[in-house]
């Protein structure tokens, strides 16, 4: 588009009182740009002025110097126009009050050696806006060449069937793949299940039969049993999936990345690229490369991973003190359910009626932790199974020993109902030992509500072992992604395919693939069914977003996508390796293959690229670089005591709002800093920092989110990657004879707005202590 620029300065909200608007306008006028001021730009009259310039004068690139872009977003939205919001209200005037940063007196104005820091700040921001708008384009959505709305559901248990039914009800075609010969999963093997609806008091028949019937009746659901996923290649809206018989070896089985120990030679030194490729090929012999799509593969738009759980398998002797493995009458809750499903509860050892059963909720050994992988589910399972004992035998007795009865929320109703069931005895207590006592078992427990040390004789003992997500054993999704076949961060979730975000529970870091049910947390049937609905929604939402060519969360609706200038690519693979979402695959040479529909538009690739060949229509190395270069760096030639210039690259998700809130509270910080919002610290390219320093700026700081296992970065790795890059830049600085300290990164949470001014001022002060950048003026 041919840009026609218009600069608009609002003088309301104290801007006109604090700044010399004439001088500010001259900045634009000097560049030949039309510049208008308005006392109240967001008013109807103000907006009418903008609209008339758009329609009458053909202005299509507007620079609005007024408030933060976080407010009046709807007022200043003009379709088909580039709008740059130059934040001189929160960013300049409100955060740099004139009581603290006095304006020049008339006398001082006459003195050329005097300067007004706040005015300089506003003028720089205007220049930066002008520089940016020159370099950005209106985005056009990314369109897939092939597109399908079909949904693949992995796992035909209750969760998978629920997700399939929910998506099918909305008109989507669904295929369920199930590795067993029939649908139903674990639940199909149960006698009864926990209640799923108010009043949550009684056991019910499992929901499996109903689900299977509904799936069979649904015209748009295809079921493939005894089938598993060999690989999922491609991107949302256009995945190419190879399905195979369980255990079968095929050439489209997904290749695995080399394990770390194979990437080094005997001396522990990292192998070179060619050697790695040879090893990788040998390691994956017989398998097609990830970039080779199966011509017979099925096309899917999105995937729901509902592969569920398997029972925890005790290690040899692990629960010997509880008799497991010592006598057949000590079983796990999973084994007990199998017995119960067959008929009346009988002892495995001799087939005699088991009328007295002890349920052990915690392995003991001094702490009050439950068995691994249990959640709240096993407390409720124990209550359910205790009820079986009393259902089967009028004189049946079930003893449940727990450390904490975990029946949260409305499941408390079920607990109460079981408490009132004759024959069920519930007590806190630590089971210290299970031993043979003739034909029965003697269960010793301490610290119980019934006495300090008690002993109960039982026909059977049931241990409440947990539900292990199958992702502990296997990636299951088998993604033909260069970063590897599974989800990336399962290790920090104990092997679950969970989300790290409390606010966004369906984040998997693999766009278009959503986990549901017990694969991501131990869940009851009720919870799993509910979770399945949410995952189905996310799958549908991803498909519809891809169809519109826009990003999904957190930059929902963003039409930009990364564009690569491949001629200059040096195949360094950094973009492929660093993308938090595995959006890039590279070929044998290391040339990246973008998969824009997998991309979340954070710009981490752009920050990683040493050749600076990656960018977005409205956000690229040049647009930010030009902003940096447009900042005026006062030198000793101009002023006897020139002010310092410090660049701040600020995460727009948390740090930027925090700065706005600081401004709202009239908290001030140094007027010598110039802040540039970035999509994520991961998108920060070190060239911006080098440019800033080589043009004489005195320091650069990055403001972003907390990293580590409890990271708050919306793009998972952005702030962490930035911190690694900042460490590396230290070496480059030293080679320029600049102090490392001139570049720093700070972590800030969105609510720490009160700490920001000190954080910034301390840095500025420290840099002042180092003295001016020696490159200044060159």
């Amino acid at each position: 588009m041919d840009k026609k620029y218009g600069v608009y300065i609002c003088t309301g909200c104290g801007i006109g009182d604090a700044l010399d608007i004439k001088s500010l306008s001259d900045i634009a006028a000097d560049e030949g740009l039309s510049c208008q001021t308005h006392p109240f730009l967001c008013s109807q009259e103000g907006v009418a002025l903008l609209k008339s310039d758009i329609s009458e004068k053909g202005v299509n690139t507007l620079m609005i110097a007024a408030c933060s872009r976080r407010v009046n977003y709807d007022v200043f939205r003009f379709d088909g126009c580039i709008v740059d919001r130059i934040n001189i209200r929160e960013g300049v005037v409100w955060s740099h009050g004139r009581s603290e940063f006095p304006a020049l007196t008339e006398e001082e104005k006459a003195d050329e050696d005097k300067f007004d820091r706040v005015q300089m700040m506003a003028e720089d921001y205007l220049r930066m806006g002008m520089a940016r708008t020159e370099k950005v384009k209106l985005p056009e959505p990314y369109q897939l060449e092939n597109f399908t709305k079909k949904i693949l559901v992995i796992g035909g248990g209750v969760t998978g069937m629920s997700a399939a039914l929910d998506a099918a009800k909305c008109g989507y075609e669904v295929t369920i793949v199930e590795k067993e010969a029939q649908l139903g999963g674990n639940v199909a093997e149960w006698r009864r299940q926990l209640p799923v609806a108010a009043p949550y008091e009684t056991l019910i028949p499992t929901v499996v039969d109903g689900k299977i019937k509904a799936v069979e009746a649904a015209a748009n659901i295809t079921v493939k049993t005894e089938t598993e996923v060999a690989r999922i290649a491609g991107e949302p809206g256009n995945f190419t999936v190879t399905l195979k018989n369980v255990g079968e070896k095929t050439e489209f089985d997904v290749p695995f990345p080399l394990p770390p120990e194979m990437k080094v030679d005997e001396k522990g030194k990292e192998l070179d690229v060619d050697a790695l490729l040879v090893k990788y090929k040998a390691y994956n012999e017989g398998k097609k490369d990830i970039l080779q799509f199966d011509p017979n593969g099925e096309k899917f738009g999105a995937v729901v991973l509902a592969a569920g759980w398997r029972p925890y398998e005790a290690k040899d002797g692990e629960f010997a003190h509880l008799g497991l493995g010592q006598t057949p009458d000590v079983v796990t809750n999973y084994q007990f359910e199998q017995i119960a499903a067959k008929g009346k509860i009988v002892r495995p050892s001799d087939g005699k009626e088991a009328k007295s059963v002890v349920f052990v909720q915690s392995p003991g050994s001094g702490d009050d932790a439950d068995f691994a992988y249990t959640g709240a589910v096993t407390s409720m399972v124990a209550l359910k199974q205790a009820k079986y004992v009393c259902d089967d035998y009028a004189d049946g007795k079930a003893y449940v020993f727990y450390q904490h009865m975990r029946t949260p929320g409305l499941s408390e109703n079920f607990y109460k109902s079981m408490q009132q069931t004759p024959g069920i005895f519930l007590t806190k207590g630590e089971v210290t030992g299970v031993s043979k006592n003739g034909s029965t078992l003697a269960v010793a427990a301490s610290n119980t509500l019934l006495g300090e040390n008690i002993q109960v004789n039982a026909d059977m003992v049931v241990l409440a072992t947990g539900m292990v997500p199958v992702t502990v054993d296997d990636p299951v999704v088998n993604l033909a992604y260069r970063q590897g076949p599974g989800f990336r961060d399962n290790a920090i979730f104990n092997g679950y395919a969970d989300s790290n975000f409390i606010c966004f529970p369906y984040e998997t870091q693999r766009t278009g693939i959503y986990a549901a049910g017990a694969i991501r947390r131990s869940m009851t049937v009720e919870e799993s069914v509910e979770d399945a609905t949410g995952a189905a929604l996310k799958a549908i939402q991803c498909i519809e977003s891809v169809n519109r060519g826009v990003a999904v969360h957190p930059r929902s609706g963003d039409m930009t996508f990364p564009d690569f200038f491949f001629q200059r690519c040096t195949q360094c693979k950094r973009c492929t390796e660093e993308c938090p979402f595995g959006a890039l695959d590279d070929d044998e040479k290391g040339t990246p293959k973008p998969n824009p529909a997998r991309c979340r538009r954070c710009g981490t690739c752009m920050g990683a690229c040493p050749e600076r060949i990656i960018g977005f229509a409205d956000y690229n190395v040049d647009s930010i670089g030009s902003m940096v270069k447009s900042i005026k760096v006062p030198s000793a030639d101009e002023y006897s005591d020139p002010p310092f210039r410090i660049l701040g690259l600020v995460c727009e998700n948390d740090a930027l709002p925090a700065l706005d809130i600081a401004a709202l509270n009239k908290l001030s910080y140094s007027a010598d800093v110039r802040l540039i919002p970035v999509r994520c610290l991961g998108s920060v390219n070190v060239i911006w920092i080098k440019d800033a320093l080589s043009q004489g700026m005195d320091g650069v700081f990055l403001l972003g989110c907390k990293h580590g296992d409890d990271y708050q970065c919306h793009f998972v790795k952005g702030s962490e990657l930035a911190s690694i890059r900042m460490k590396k830049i230290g070496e480059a600085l030293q080679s320029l004879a600049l102090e490392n300290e001139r570049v720093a990164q700070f972590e800030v949470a969105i609510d720490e707005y009160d700490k920001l001014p000190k954080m910034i001022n301390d840095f500025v002060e420290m840099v002042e202590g180092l003295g001016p950048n020696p490159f200044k003026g060159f």
Partner: protein
Amino acid sequence: MTEDKSAPFSGSIMVVGGGISGLTTALEAAEVGYEVFIVEKNPYLGGRVAQLNQYFPKLCPPTCGLEINFRRIKDNPNIKFFTLAEVEKVSGGPGNYSVTLKLNPRYVNENCTGCGACAEACQTELPSEFNFGLNKTKGAYLPHEMAFPSRYVISPQIIGTEDAKRCQEACQYNAVDLEMKAKTIELNVGSMVWATGWEPYDAAKIDNLGFGRYPNIITNMMLERLAAPNGPTKGQILRPSDDKAPESIAFVQCAGSRDENHLPYCSYICCMASLKHATYIRARYPEAKIYIFYIDMRTPGYRYEKFYQNIKEDKNVFFIKGKVAEVQESADNRQITVVAENAVTGEKIRQAVDLVVLATGMQPTAAKNKLPAGELKYTEDGFIINDMERGGMFGAGCANKPADVVSSNQNATGMALKAIQTLVRR
């Protein structure tokens, strides 16, 4: 080759309640491509979680996720929201509801720039509802710094006073409109999701726990406000009677919950909330003694369990299995003695502390006043029972059951699909 870009089927969705669940349902549906209306009774979106200092177990600020959600709203023309709005009447059935909304006056119009001149001019101070009355706010106020929309409100309590006129005169932008009246509008929608959330159980009703009688007994939600950097004390946790730093704090779990006289169910979040509060205390007072009186520690799942295990490492956090029976105040030092029976040993425990925090539970908003929709069904305690077969209307989040934020968001995401299914079936 690309298919039709519109949403697969037509019709709008109304989400009642703009807290974290309502926002989630609304956004997830809107990002599929549907038109969504959010109806929020407060002057801001964000609901209950906006009052929290941090989420467990990550100890991250709720405003972080809210900010992203607000940006998603800003960027999505499919979502329209009404604040200070209530549903008055619903007629029709699944696929075709006619909803009457009452829009209460904010007395501040869209001219508001958020400059704050009205609040500066206003002299009246009113107890801050947002901060549970722990401090006062002006009669013209921004509900909180991160409030979205970022627009001032004039309390109806100062309408008709000189003070209101002062606010009006102080505004340079003609944003204060004292003549604003409540309006009624009608909207037609295909499905409705009630995400009307919860209220902290009224601790004053728990007679034996002394709330309201003794100043040094506060609730868990009050502690959230005290710990919040934008709270009444800017994040300091002090004893209300004398603003002294507490050296010992007792948490009384199941204050009202799991109690047939109050809330017969478990409120799901209070155990984790108190453990989180222990971290608030510890961050401020490295030596303070913390006593947690509980029935069962309900920390389900690997993440919550890990959080609990970490806190157990702290030698100055004491866990006592026993329900608190009574509290006594010492007249001279205003300390509170918490009396409980240790459930395991039977021993009677008397622990004097500087501050008592009642872990009060959650009560669904509909427990007090039924929602204006005849077809909704409730449990005895006021939680909405969903009828998935019938469709049309659904309860989401804590209107449906007591839950933490993660589960509420899962539930709310699913309800977006249920709402869409209703539209598709037409």
